[in-house]
């Protein structure tokens, strides 16, 4: 059978097409300041709790902020209950510190494209949170709750930088 010959122009077009896809991928990867699994490392201080989606018209009149009592009720069965500061360690451990200086250790992993945070306590079923925003200073987690919030709750965190520690000590 006669061997098919491809025109050099066609070959070049294919190489250019695939090559530009590769260049685009490299460019996008290079543009990223850090991968989510490194950006998340460190200590995060809980700043606020809000409703992302309001449960109803009544709640809309009260504003989006979730009260402390409601927050306690929502998190009652969750591993993050009463956690004030979250410390992500590179070995996959997560330390949840509360205001009474109690620490709860657990395991963290990121799923999908780095947008799902899985927290594994070992005793109960793992919990999953949607990592909506993650940058140098801010982390926003969403999670669905079927308790009082009856919708999506939004947790905002502020990163505790090492400078802050130094300033505190001074």
């Amino acid at each position, binding site marked *: 059978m006669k061997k098919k010959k491809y025109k050099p122009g066609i070959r070049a077009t294919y190489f250019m097409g695939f090559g530009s896809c590769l260049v*685009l991928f490299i460019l996008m*990867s290079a543009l990223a300041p850090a991968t989510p699994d490194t950006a998340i490392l460190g200590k995060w201080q809980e700043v606020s709790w809000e409703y992302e989606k309001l449960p109803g018209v009544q709640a809309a009149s009260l504003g989006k902020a979730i009260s402390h009592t409601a927050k306690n009720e929502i998190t009652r069965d969750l591993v993050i209950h009463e956690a004030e500061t979250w410390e992500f360690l590179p070995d996959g451990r997560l330390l949840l510190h509360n205001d009474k200086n109690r620490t709860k250790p657990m395991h963290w992993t990121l799923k999908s494209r780095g947008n799902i945070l*899985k927290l594994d306590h070992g005793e109960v079923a793992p919990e999953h949170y949607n990592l909506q925003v993650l940058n140098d200073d801010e982390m926003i987690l969403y999670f669905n709750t079927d308790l009082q919030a009856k919708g999506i709750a939004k947790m905002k965190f502020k990163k505790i930088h090492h400078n802050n520690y130094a300033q505190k000590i001074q």
Partner: protein
Amino acid sequence: MLRKFSNSRTTKENIQLGSLTAFSAGMVNVTSVIVFFAFTSNVTGHYAILAEEVSKGNWYQAAVVFAWIFLFFGGNFCSNLIIINFNQKNTYLAHAAPLVIEAICLLSVGTYGQFFYRETLNETEVLVAIMLFAMGIQNGLTASISNFSVKTTHLTGLTTDVGLLTSMFTRKEYRENKALRAKARVLFAIVTCYLSGGIFAGIVYQNIGFMVFYIASVVIGVIISYEYYKIKIKKMVRKKRRGQKFKTPVMSR
């Protein structure tokens, strides 16, 4: 299932191929959603996510999703490249080769997941990428050899077709059209098998974990070996017939 090409295929062959591949695609997709929180058989959502991540300036996530889409495309590309280049030499081999590659991909994901997976983000991204490539290969094969009438990994177009056909069947003239009825049978078989595969994987995953991918590979293996078996039997029958023809005159003497 695998020997015939394009318009020479019968409805029965399309149903057989479509059902089995859709079953394995459903299994793979549901397992990847459970384990990795990422879809591996439908790419429409990934395009939306890519646009969203680019607009937000999340370049790392955008690069990952871009690579996933490209790998699905790559799977389709490779599959059809093998078919169009080797179809005339050996149709069965040209059609079985993409399925062998798919089975290898699924087996490697299953084995890695079962024995080595440490749940890091990089591992997750790579395993999802391999599965998208495998699904691309499968979709490319079924679409290519069935003249674009069987697509088994994503159900957007298929649901559209089912919707159109269902509305057409409200009129008698279309209800009695054999070609349309055959198409409807193929589509319903794919939908049912995709869904059953997903449900089956969801239940089975709780007990056997990543070994679900072995079952998906076995389903692919069934398609390959069934055709091989049929070819062998046909050859044996032909040989026997030839032998009988040759023997007959000797006996008459």
